[in-house]
């Protein structure tokens, strides 16, 4: 047999270069080397050309003073800070919009998705109209619409709408009292932490008791009361260690207090409303993927409808919903870069906009911006994949 095959020698051993595994490895190594060489060529060629044309390169610019102002910053910032700081300011503003957008879009999306399956004809049709309208209009137009729809009808600062002289609304934003913590507020925070730990322990104990004895305990409700009640009680006992900084009209606008700029409001509104339409469809598909037999079986076992929903339908629906939800969260985060159209100071507006133009270092700035979006997306993706794994059907 062995002698019939020309590539095999007398000992019956296949030469190394004809072994499939060896060849596969060699080709893969070659491919990776080629890719690396190509990447290196692109990089060095770019750098060389920029050098030839007298364009400054490198990341040294991050240490230079920025010299321009930014509309909204979650950390201390003024003109004297560096370009590196503008990167952080822009990044935090992007994360703020993404977090708020994901929060509201999830709530709204679940609500609309369930409404679309409602037995009430009107509710179901309204949900359908919502979904078909908002997911079929380009997001950029929606952002522009909400920006000007929010901005136009609102009064000037001097004619602000107000609620009890502490909350003001005008076309410069929404002004709320800002809580200022005093000594002793740490106790309230500590009480909150204790209450959360207590609630978790309570839930675990209740589950174990039910598994052992079948007796139920309203763990959810009592945990909720604990988390709200204990800090409130501590707050009252320790003599209200909190006061409010109210916004005051001075000169051109309100000062002090907490300010929500209209750009942020418009952007969060548009992103949540748009993404919620997609999430609603994901929720509907998830719920419809659970066969009706499951519900009937649960009822046959004597489970009440709410318990059926909680223990039978939702856990199975989530397996379908979560992967789609991940995509929508990623989309929302990336779509937040449209902020630049209405002047919200996100990463693209501040860093890939003003900073890029003031320094002229397009390659570095764009590379950093792309890197950040990739990183944020990967983190969201990793988290959602982990959550998905936990919720997957465990096959025995």
């Amino acid at each position, binding site marked *: 047999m062995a002698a019939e095959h020309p590539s095999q020698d007398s000992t019956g051993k296949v030469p190394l270069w004809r072994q499939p595994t060896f060849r596969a490895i060699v080709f893969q190594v070659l491919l990776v080397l080629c890719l690396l060489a190509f990447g290196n060529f692109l990089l060095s060629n770019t750098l060389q050309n920029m050098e030839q044309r007298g364009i*400054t390169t490198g990341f040294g610019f991050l240490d230079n003073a920025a010299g321009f102002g930014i*509309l909204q910053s979650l950390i201390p910032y003024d003109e004297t800070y560096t370009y590196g700081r503008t990167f952080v300011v822009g990044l935090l503003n992007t994360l703020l919009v993404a977090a708020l957008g994901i929060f509201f879009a999830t709530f709204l999306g679940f609500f609309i998705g369930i409404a679309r399956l409602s037995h009430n004809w009107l509710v179901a049709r309204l949900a359908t109209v919502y979904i078909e309208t908002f997911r079929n209009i380009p997001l950029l137009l929606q952002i522009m619409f909400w920006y000007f729809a929010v901005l136009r009808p609102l009064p000037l600062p001097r004619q602000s709408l107000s609620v009890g002289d502490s909350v003001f609304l005008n076309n*410069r934003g929404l002004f709320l009292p800002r809580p200022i913590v005093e000594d002793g507020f740490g106790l309230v925070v500590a009480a909150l932490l204790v209450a959360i730990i207590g609630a978790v322990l309570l839930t675990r104990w209740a589950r174990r008791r039910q598994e052992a004895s079948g007796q139920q305990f309203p763990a959810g409700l009592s945990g909720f009361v604990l988390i709200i009640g204990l800090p409130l009680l501590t707050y009252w006992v320790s003599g209200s260690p909190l006061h409010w900084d109210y916004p005051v009209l001075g*000169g051109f606008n309100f000062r002090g207090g907490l300010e929500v700029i209209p750009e942020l409001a418009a952007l969060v509104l548009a992103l949540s409303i748009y993404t919620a339409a997609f999430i609603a469809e994901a929720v509907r598909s998830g719920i419809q993927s659970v066969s009706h037999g499951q519900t009937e079986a649960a009822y046959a076992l004597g489970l009440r409808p709410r318990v059926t929903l909680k223990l039978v339908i939702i856990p199975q629906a989530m397996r379908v919903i979560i992967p789609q939800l991940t995509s929508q969260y990623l989309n929302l985060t990336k779509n937040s870069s449209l902020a*630049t159209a209405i002047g919200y100071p996100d990463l693209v507006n501040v860093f890939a906009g*003003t900073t890029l133009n003031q320094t002229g270092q397009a390659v570095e700035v764009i590379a950093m911006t792309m890197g950040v979006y990739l990183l944020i997306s990967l983190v969201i993706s990793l988290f959602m994949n982990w959550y998905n794994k936990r919720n997957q059907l465990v096959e025995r």
Partner: protein
Amino acid sequence: MTTTRWVIGLGAALTLSGAVHAGATLDAVKSKGFVQCGVSTGLPGFSSADDKGRFTGIDVDMCRAVAAAIFGDAEKVKYNPLTAKERFTALQSGEIDMLPRNTTWTYTRDTSLGLNFTGVNYYDGQGFLVTKNLGVKSALEMDGASFCIQAGTTTELNLADYFRSNKMNYTPITFDTSDQTIKAFEAGRCDALTSDQSQLYALRIKLSDPKSAVVLPEVISKEPLGPVVRQGDDEWFNVVKWSLYAMVNAEELGVTSANVDEMKASSTDPNVRRLLGVEGVKGEWMGLPDDWGYNIIKQVGNYGEAFDRNVGAGSALGIARGLNALWSKGGLQYAPPIR
């Protein structure tokens, strides 16, 4: 095998396109037959498309002058409307040949971006546009006010400097295009719009009621605006630079688009004869035909004509010559002699 060849081919293409040699831009422009010109996305008086889709403006006239000098035909221009953010990258990457886009000449831009400013076709300064009913008479009364600004401009930096040096607070709201800034201003998002004064006049006529807004008297910065080219191509730099100088010299010598034929035929002034390429100097020193100056004046006009037609007395903007008058009339426009 084909993949390897493709990779090598792509690499070679990248290397070739990266090579620069003096005169490359002029040769490329001549062989493609038009000048690729980066202008603003719509700023009346400087560069904006009219109702027939034709671009007009004092910046557009710079493109037309260069095309007239090279081809003898001012129409051989293609325009790229660019935002402030996009403009330098477009020029650096070779997407456009020249950038006359109300761009301020600053140290950073001239030295670190691989670009050169060829001259100043408009001396400007930053000012403020406010609504009349705000009742503000001076920028110094605007502590705590909010300002609509265009991103990626010297305006952002000047505003910050001005408020810092006067120990006042301000809120910047930064948009991509000047159109967005004026829309936000009209919607009442900001108390004032700040930009180069010329732009304020240009943007004001875009308001539904231009009379409701006023330009404050303060000028808080120097903004010399001029055409920009890539660094390292001296021949092209000369062509753009001298196209502007020819227009300024023509105004000084009294040569206009109306009388240029007559002047060419009968003028005895040696300065005029050199400008129009009749005697003395040769266009080929820049790689151009001898009558390059004549073609600019004939088809585009002298600097004064371009100014009046686009931003001055003969336009909707009605801006006075001021700093942009000839040096001999108390302004700053001064061109080296053609000899």
